[in-house]
């Protein structure tokens, strides 16, 4: 539930990944929840040529009044990366002291598959050194155990909600209105599993 205090809150959330990973649906659910809590919300994403397996980003900004829809370098409160090397690509967008949620999952681009580039080693360990308190886990594996790996986007959304302290929003109700009815139950479980990640709650397993 929102109150005056929550309405005054502001934040910049950058969701990044690889085209086709479901960043857009996660951002849609996130924005809808923030709107319902009474915030001014702007969300910006890029379509077209940037999809097709390319690097993608969605910017979500909220607060009492939001102007520019774009998050600048050094301004994201939380960076959610759906792929681990993408976290490194966008890390400079995180503000000092910002939080990083990263899917411990590797998608090798064609440049790596054809031997023209190398996929970096020890990505998660190096991200942990750079950002204290990184939340890193295989969201696809969590979603798979719940029934469908594709729900990884909502697992990551759950982790983000805990990170940003957005628990005052009724996310179950938001999911009800934003995801297809037949995947609602799964998405609620995925959301809760993501939110509980690292808290020792059995839901996280």
């Amino acid at each position, binding site marked *: 539930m929102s109150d005056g205090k929550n309405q005054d809150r502001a934040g910049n959330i950058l969701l990044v990944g690889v085209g086709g990973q479901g960043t857009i649906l996660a951002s849609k659910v996130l924005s809808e929840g923030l709107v319902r809590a009474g915030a001014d919300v702007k969300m910006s994403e890029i379509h077209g040529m940037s999809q097709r397996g390319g690097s993608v980003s969605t910017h979500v900004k909220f607060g009492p009044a939001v*102007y520019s829809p774009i998050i600048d370098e050094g301004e994201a409160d939380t960076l959610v990366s759906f792929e681990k090397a993408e976290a490194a690509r966008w890390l400079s967008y995180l503000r000092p002291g910002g939080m990083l949620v990263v899917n411990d999952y590797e998608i090798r681009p064609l440049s790596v598959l054809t031997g023209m580039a190398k996929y970096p080693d020890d990505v998660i360990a190096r991200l942990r050194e750079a950002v204290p308190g990184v939340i890193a886990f295989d969201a696809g594996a969590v979603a798979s155990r719940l029934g469908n790996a594709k729900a990884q986007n909502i697992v990551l959304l759950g982790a983000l909600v805990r990170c940003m302290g957005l628990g005052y929003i009724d996310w179950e109700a938001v999911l009800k209105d934003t995801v297809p009815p037949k995947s609602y139950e799964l998405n609620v479980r995925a959301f809760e599993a993501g939110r509980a990640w690292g808290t020792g709650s059995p839901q996280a397993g």
Partner: protein
Amino acid sequence: MRKIMTGNEAIARGAWEAGCRVAAAYPGTPSSEILENIALYAEIDSEWSVNEKVAVEVASGASMAGARALAAMKHVGLNVAADPFFTMSYVGASGGLVIVTADDPGLFSSQNEQDNRWYALHAKTPMMEPSDSQECLDYVRDAFEISERFDVPVLFRVTTRICHSKSAAEPGERVDVPVKPYERDPAKRVMTPAAAKARRYLLEEREKKLREFSNGCPYNRIEWGASRKAGVITSGIGYQHAREAFKDAGFSYLKLGFTYPLPDELIREFAAGVEKVYVVEENEPYIESFVKSLGIACEGRSLFPAVDELNAGIVRSAVLGCKPEPGPTSGVTPPPRPPVLCPGCSHRGVFYALSKEKDIVVSSDIGCYTLGVAPPLSVTDSVICMGASVSAGIGYQKAFASAATDGPGRKQPKVFSVIGDSTFFHSGITGLIDAVVNKSESALIILDNRTTAMTGHQENPGTGFTIKGEATARIDLRDLCVACGVKQGNVRSVDSYDIGAVAKAVADARASREFFVIIASRPCALIRDVARARADLYCEADKEKCVGCKACLKAGCPALAPDGGKITIDRVACNGCMICAMICPVGAISRVGDFYE
């Protein structure tokens, strides 16, 4: 109730609320969702036009007939539609006529970064520039009225960050504006030189009235800040970036929403009220040039880059000199991740066949298949604009033939023009006719994937459906080529997945001394029904048989990966197209699963 919506959704909503009756567009990022959303309203007769020129002409006809009409396109689409656009400024509008141009600062999905605000100046049409979704809705609704009031089409200029950003907007009710009774008026609408000259004088009169309107309209407003030390003149997304950048500085703003003609008096008043003037705008110094022409000193391009989109950080550091504290760095170098042809892409087999040919030049076009330039396929020599593959191919072949007369030893490469089905209908047909009648020895490959894939799978004249999903005539590519004069024997239809047949067709085209067309057909793997039917299909590499030669990787499929010297195939990504299996020299790859009925 306020709703969060994209600029494109808000434009569609505003057009509907304004009583728009006819809407036409050719898809193009970032504009495509405007018509997709307009088509959801039963009251608006909507169409995917064959190209942007057709779209503007359809809307122009509807306007002359008395209906409110809209045409939408990406920035380069207005180049295609420039001919009717310029002259409709002379003809004027009976029913309100709104032309939406969606520019792409930053070239997220475009072949150039042209700033279409100059079109308004050039064609002498009023221009509006919204800065968020609410303004998209409000301005487009008002644009129809402005068009009718001043008897002129309105250029509605948006950019990627306006089209594809979501922000809150308050939807209203639809005002049902009747179609005006039709009145014939040849002196106004038949643009003979004499009639056009008479209209030409009226343009100058209209311009004065429009400038007066610009000075007093609600779309241009001064927002005095706590400080008069600095004032910012800005429009569109630049306004949002500036407000964000200077939110603690107390600057004053001249926020422009009606940007042609620019409001000279208002600009003078604003400049007189502040100590220093900044102009914040992306790409071209459109506003800045005008401000300077008034004799007002200002800083714009001297501070902000001309190339790429702006953001608040760029604006802030250029003016205030402060940069945000840098974020963390990991030292991890992420691998390049450019867009690639999808697993199961129907274009892959054709590019693979071309990659095996020596001494060819590939003149390509605008669409997903532009990615034929990317390694490992790397076959494409040039891409200019929609339709240029065919006509540029004619020119290439002429020049190579001419070069052969410069002396022995000059190679005469065979030229293959490559174009998608939707792009071919858009503007490839004229090139095809030119090739036939001018006896071009080049060859054309039409990549027929039965959709307009790059922009999100819109219908086209080859799909058999309208934008509203109604069944309609389907233009047969083979019949069309033959009707345009290509000899029956010089048109070859092949299945894009059958790389043997594609290679044979390429060899025959190469040997032909007459214009030769290959129609390579196979629906896009991402079309919903196609994806569903092939959801359970995938290829598997037999680790015993695989010799690790990596020949299959030459097709550039992202579902294939070398794994300890052998190939593994991602069964989720793979759709079982079998191109890798056909390439494999030892028969190690086979398909698993069934088609889903």
